């Protein structure tokens, strides 16, 4: 019990640092702006079609690969200094020991990823409020957009909203929001762990960020229509953060939902084990000081 308490305290210590970390404020402003812009576009489309928008467009908020890249890169910025070692951590390590310290950092990566996507969800709901109807249904606008994706791009300038009809058919709004959040959260955790693993293995912070950035950009290529790389999406975890790239009920060639969850969990377990073993046996000098 005392051990769990120590690990949680270490994790919370990192969250406390957000208050004066300019990166966090920049990221929050950027994500809010992206959601605000999306909601404004939806509002414009709603006016054009004479229907109300919905509060639940979070599952489609980053379905366009342009937005997916814009939304995922700030996560790399948030995680780039993993395992978040600074002079304050010297005091923590000498109290908790290496193993508890790194476990605290791993839990922090998981928690930060969850908060990150919950923030996007909250922004998407708040910014949609002026244009939306308060209902637990998809409403009239999203189905209209789903069947006119090409046309809507001509109605709203810089419109990056993509709506999948398959998602509308297979999920209720709340279940779509939950599953999108779950996949995004796991993906964010995996990206954070990849950055952390590279940072502790190579002692060079740019390598972890470079690999995570490469995975994000690669997902953009895999999702590009017309390039014929769709079949490789099963090797691109970043692509699985939206439900249009995940198969439900064997209707598409995309990886199944269970495949995605299993791969995410396997990656989290393997990367966490690697990081813990590495930190236990290596010098903390380069990470901490």
């Amino acid at each position, binding site marked *: 019990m005392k051990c769990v308490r120590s690990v949680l305290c*270490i994790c919370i210590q990192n969250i406390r640092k957000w208050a004066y970390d300019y990166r966090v404020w920049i990221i929050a402003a950027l994500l809010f702006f992206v959601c605000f812009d999306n909601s404004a576009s939806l509002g414009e489309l709603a006016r054009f079609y004479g229907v109300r928008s919905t509060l639940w467009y979070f599952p489609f908020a980053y379905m366009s690969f342009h937005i997916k890249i814009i939304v995922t890169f700030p996560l790399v910025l948030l995680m780039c200094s993993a395992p978040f070692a600074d*002079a304050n*951590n010297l005091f923590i390590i000498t*109290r908790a020991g290496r193993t508890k310290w790194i476990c605290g950092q791993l839990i922090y990566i998981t928690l930060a990823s969850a908060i990150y996507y919950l923030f996007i969800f909250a922004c998407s709901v708040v910014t949609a409020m002026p244009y939306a109807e308060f209902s637990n249904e998809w409403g009239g606008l999203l189905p209209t957009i789903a069947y006119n994706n090409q046309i809507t791009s001509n109605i709203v300038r810089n419109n990056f909203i993509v709506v999948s009809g398959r998602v509308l058919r297979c999920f209720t709004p709340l279940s779509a929001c939950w599953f999108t959040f779950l996949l995004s959260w796991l993906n964010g955790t995996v990206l954070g762990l990849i950055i952390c693993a590279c940072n502790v293995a190579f002692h060079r912070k740019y390598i972890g960020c470079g690999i995570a950035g490469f995975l994000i950009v690669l997902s953009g290529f895999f999702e590009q229509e017309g390039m014929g790389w769709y079949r490789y999406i099963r090797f691109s975890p970043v692509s699985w953060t939206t439900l249009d790239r995940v198969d439900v009920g064997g209707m598409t060639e995309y990886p199944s939902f269970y495949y995605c969850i299993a791969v995410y969990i396997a990656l989290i377990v393997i990367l966490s084990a690697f990081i813990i073993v590495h930190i236990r046996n290596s010098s903390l000098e380069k990470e901490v000081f």
Partner: protein
Amino acid sequence: MNYSIEAEQVCKQFKDNLALDNVDLKVESGSICGLVGRNGSGKTVLMKCICGLMPLTSGKIIVNGKTIGRDVEIPKSVGVIIETPGFLNSFSAYSNLKFLADISGKADKQAIRAAIKSVGLDPDSKKHVGKYSLGMRQRLGLAQAIMEDPELLILDEPMNGLDKDGVQDMRRYLLDLKVRGKTILIASHSTEDIDILCDAVCEMDKGKLSVIR
């Protein structure tokens, strides 16, 4: 004779640089041992190895009877100041120490307040640590090192940034800790500090340690 720290044939190699070269060190329990030497001589590396922050290339270090890296990851009951103390700038002194005390679970509110008071700071002050002078941060660093009442203190340049009165207070406080049976390993460039405080003095030079007194 009881020893709080026993280092035997300790070597630490960084690529081409042998930072610690067959270091043997014994620090008697309840004494103050001074570590002197030029910048880059290996004092801080030795202290980090004793704290378990760096694995040794060879040799072994025993702290309070436990071998670092084999019996324990990090020595138990040790207070540390190495280099500039790092605190959360947007929180008060008390909050900073409370966060650390929550992790160890070894110091209650009274102990934290007493530690802050004992180094001449105000535990009730709401002033953020970011607004502290270097000397005040150094004092707070000592407070965090002593708040859990550790048996051993490892202090790397604890007088850094302190004014004349601050140095006097710190010396008095360290001697008081010694009277209370604490063991202290202190690195300093000040010969005056070393002369006044230390029972034993060792010098580091290019990774080699020699006993002066």
